[in-house]
């Protein structure tokens, strides 16, 4: 049977992995290649790199990092952050990324999703949806959750799949960094609305949250950062826990 996936996420800025302290300041968490290898050894099913480099001068650094990781780690690699045009997608795939995640640019220019999927195939185009509860529905936000778009997140999910997204990364901005668990109704609503796989993200604080994301949120994969970066749990421990709760995993 197909296994549910666990995907550690590495936030990269200026060539280093960083993690937030008290969700504010960023602290250096180490070398991306070393960290990627550690998660690979622990049995991560995929890795996601999010390039949060602010200055355009250092944006190219992610390409070198992906090249190094891809020659040593033989599991799927997804890269997101700052993807604005089809050429950005090409550069990342050529560096060794298997999938590219598009977020703000998909809202500014939905045609980018269609163009990238048309050129490289849906299998490598992930659309990241940052959603927040607004009244009785969820709304898409961009620019790291700072900008409201007025777009209904479930409708947006359907649109993105129709344009060619092969997978959706759904992050609850209400939960991100809170460690109180995924927004399960949001994940469930989007998972039920589309046929493509859903990655749940935002809010993981313990291993039960991962189980809930799959069982109640209908997620095909779960993404987490801090529970792995802080060394609280290894990926293997997370998988063993999921298996104990009746979820098919790769161990």
């Amino acid at each position: 049977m197909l296994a549910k996936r666990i995907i550690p996420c590495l936030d990269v800025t200026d060539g280093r992995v960083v993690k937030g302290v008290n969700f504010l300041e960023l602290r250096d968490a180490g070398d991306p290649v070393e960290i990627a290898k550690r998660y690979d050894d622990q049995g991560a099913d995929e890795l996601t790199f999010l390039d949060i480099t602010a200055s355009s001068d250092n944006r190219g650094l992610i390409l070198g990092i992906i090249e190094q990781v891809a020659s040593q780690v033989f599991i799927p690699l997804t890269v997101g952050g700052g993807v604005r045009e089809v050429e950005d997608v090409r550069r990342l795939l050529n560096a060794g990324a298997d999938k590219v995640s598009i977020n703000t640019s998909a809202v500014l220019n939905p045609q980018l999703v269609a163009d990238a999927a048309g050129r490289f195939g849906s299998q490598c185009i992930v659309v990241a949806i940052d959603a927040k509860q607004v009244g009785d529905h969820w709304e898409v936000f961009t620019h790291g959750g700072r900008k409201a778009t007025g777009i209904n997140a479930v409708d947006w999910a359907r649109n993105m799949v129709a344009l060619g997204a092969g997978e959706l990364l759904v992050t609850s901005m209400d939960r991100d960094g809170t460690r109180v668990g995924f927004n399960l109704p949001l994940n469930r609503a989007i998972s039920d609305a589309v046929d493509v796989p859903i990655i749940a993200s935002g809010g993981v604080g313990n291993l039960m949250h991962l189980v809930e994301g799959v069982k109640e949120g209908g997620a095909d994969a779960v993404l987490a950062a801090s529970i792995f970066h802080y060394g609280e749990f290894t990926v293997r421990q997370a998988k063993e826990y999921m298996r104990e709760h009746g979820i098919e995993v790769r161990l």
Partner: protein
Amino acid sequence: MIDIAVVDYGMGNLRSVAKALEHVAPDHRVVVTSDPAKIAAAGRVVFPGQGAMPDCVRELDARGLREAVIAAAADKPFLGICIGLQLLFDHSEEGDVAGLGIVPGQVKRFAAADMHDALGGKLKVPHMGWNQVYQSDKHPLWAGIEQGARFYYVHSYYVQPQDAAIEAGYSEYPTRFTSCVARNNIFAVQFHPEKSQHDGLQLLANFVRWNGVSN
């Protein structure tokens, strides 16, 4: 002398395939190429592919590679990966397009609407992630790989060979489908060995050592 040619027809992430081959065979010369002469000169050929099958067929022909691939599949150790498996068949439902006709059979789409797992959960298409592969038969490319080992898949279509005897492996999603075929010098897989960690690298290492005899 080129030891391994990876056929480049502009479809998919060939760097991943080349990097994985270089990792398991550091003493071999691996070349990613769209030159028919280099494919003809290579000792063994890897035929990868991603994206949509109609685009793959068009790009293959645009680069004049159809004959070179057919020739390689006729007589040297040949490894098809993903669309590189599907392209070997007669016909695909994807875009209602003809394949290379090297292996008799059809390429079909998963019927997303009717697919549920054992717990009643909806199964997604593409079939994406790590699934168990069951070996239908003994084969040199399975050396050192356990029954039911997990490999990484990402696909919406699967092959149905006319001759069931060429099935080398299968997976379940939710029903059984052929995920590997073997015939003489050809071995072709639907999953991505280059992205399947230890077992994937083991399969590639087996391919690099394989003499091209299946039975």
